[in-house]
């Protein structure tokens, strides 16, 4: 329904630097100050270097790269969890991060309580959750366990409920980080079907996954990240091919 054309995510010269701090103690920090700041209390590390990227509304983008290449960092910058040290990132519409499914779940609360808490954390209003509650439970296939504390859930149930809440938040932009490859076979198929349905509805998807075959079926465009830099941006099959080539060369 939203036409291709409007920019959904705009990253311009994004730079993110992490400080690997060696101390959490005030005493050590003070000693360091008194001693004339000798030595390094911290080491700096550039996780993203001048990343520029534009994603249009309705596009489905797979973000690929080896471990530590900065994929999660980029997603966190887009969701607002992290703030850039340089450049700007801007988004249009509500962004829901499936950065890690089940973040915000509380083990000692029932499934029902967690649906409300997690729904609210992901930006839903009370009315929206009330309306979608049954649909959330149905999709998750949790059934009567909805009033059981989630610590008694199997990891599959846990994931299904979390995923179900997330897809019901109805955002404009979906950020998905490494969660598609979990859960059992049938539910995974269901998730993928749901994600395809979302993209069919014109939602913007930004997916990180190690399952290259999977992203190739879900996404149209691929972006390859290497050591915090975009090295390739194009058709998903080409990017997957390139990543495969690079992996075998190493």
């Amino acid at each position, binding site marked *: 329904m939203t036409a291709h054309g409007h*920019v959904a995510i*705009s990253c311009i010269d994004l730079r993110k630097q*992490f*400080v690997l*701090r060696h101390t*959490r*103690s*005030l*005493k050590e*920090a003070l000693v360091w100050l008194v001693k004339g700041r000798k030595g390094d209390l911290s080491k700096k590390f550039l996780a993203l270097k001048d990343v520029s990227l534009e994603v249009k509304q309705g596009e489905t983008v797979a973000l690929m790269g080896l471990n530590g290449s900065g994929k999660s960092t980029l997603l*966190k*910058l*887009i*969701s*607002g*969890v*992290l*703030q850039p040290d340089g450049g*700007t*990132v*801007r*988004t*249009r*519409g*509500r*962004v829901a*991060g499936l*950065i*890690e499914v089940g*973040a*915000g779940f*509380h083990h*000692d*609360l029932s499934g029902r*309580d967690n649906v*409300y*808490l997690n729904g*609210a*954390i*992901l930006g839903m*209003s*009370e009315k929206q959750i009330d309306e979608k509650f049954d649909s959330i439970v149905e999709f998750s296939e949790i059934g009567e366990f909805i009033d059981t504390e989630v610590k008694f859930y199997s990891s599959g149930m846990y994931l299904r409920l979390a995923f179900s809440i997330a897809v019901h938040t109805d955002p*404009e932009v979906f950020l998905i980080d490494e969660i598609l490859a979990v859960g059992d076979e049938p539910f995974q198929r269901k998730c993928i079907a749901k994600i395809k349905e979302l993209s069919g509805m014109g939602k913007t998807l930004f997916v990180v996954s190690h399952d290259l075959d999977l992203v190739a079926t879900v996404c149209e465009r691929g972006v390859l990240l290497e050591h915090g830099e975009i090295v390739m941006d194009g058709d998903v099959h080409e990017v997957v091919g390139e990543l495969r080539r690079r992996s075998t060369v190493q």
Partner: protein
Amino acid sequence: MASQVDQLVKPGSGRGLLDVYGDRFLLKLLVRKEIKVRYRGSVLGLMWSYVKPLVQFLIYFVALGIFLNLQRGTPNYAIYLFSGIVLVNFFTESLSNATRSIVDNRDLIRKIYLPRELFPVATVWVSAVHFLPQLLVLVGACLIVGWTPSVLQLAAVVLIFLMVAVLGTGLGLLFGAVNVYFRDSENIVEMIVMVVTWASPVLYLWTMVQEAMGQWFWIYQLNPMTVAVEVFHWAFWEPTLKADQLVADATPPGLLTLWLPVATLITLAVLFVGQLTFRRLAVHFAQEL
């Protein structure tokens, strides 16, 4: 919401405490979760928030009221004592839980963007939920011994409740944010908590401090908690005194006209500094936790 759809916005740039107001539903759920989780598997549940202050009260009453015989010079010493204890408990619980709130919620803060002020504010609400039953006990005790407060005194109670909540929030924001970087923050707060019961006239009388400090007494009065406790004495304890028990110097001179406004200003300043520090440090919470 509509405007958000229409334009490009920078993610993760909030308006601090104002955003918490917009997220009242989530705040409510966080407060409820906190209370549910805290008393999970406990038989007495929320009753514990009565038991603890009562035990505390008994200890002080026996040790100070009876052994040190403070109750002789202070009529209705039990009321005097309890009104101070509940207020100080509210403050210390707010502050220590708010200080830990950011680190405790690190899993969430690292993964999802939320107005981070939600967490300290939620803990202050939880403390308020614990405080209100205690306040009822206090009111009950006051009524038994013949409490006849004026409207002004009742209004003062509400004002002091708000003031202490704001003070706890302000200091909680400050120490909670610093705690992300230096866990020493928790120890500093533990010290404040220890000191605050004794740095306000909870157990003893303000006149004793004046005798000891003389012309420097005003320094003692700069502590907003001191003023808060004194106003509580004025509102709860003084109206329970009979005509022949009335003490001339129940409250320090200028308590309402000078010290209450001063304490309110200091409290607002603390909130301002707390929010300012929090906002500056919050930018890097997710990566430092």
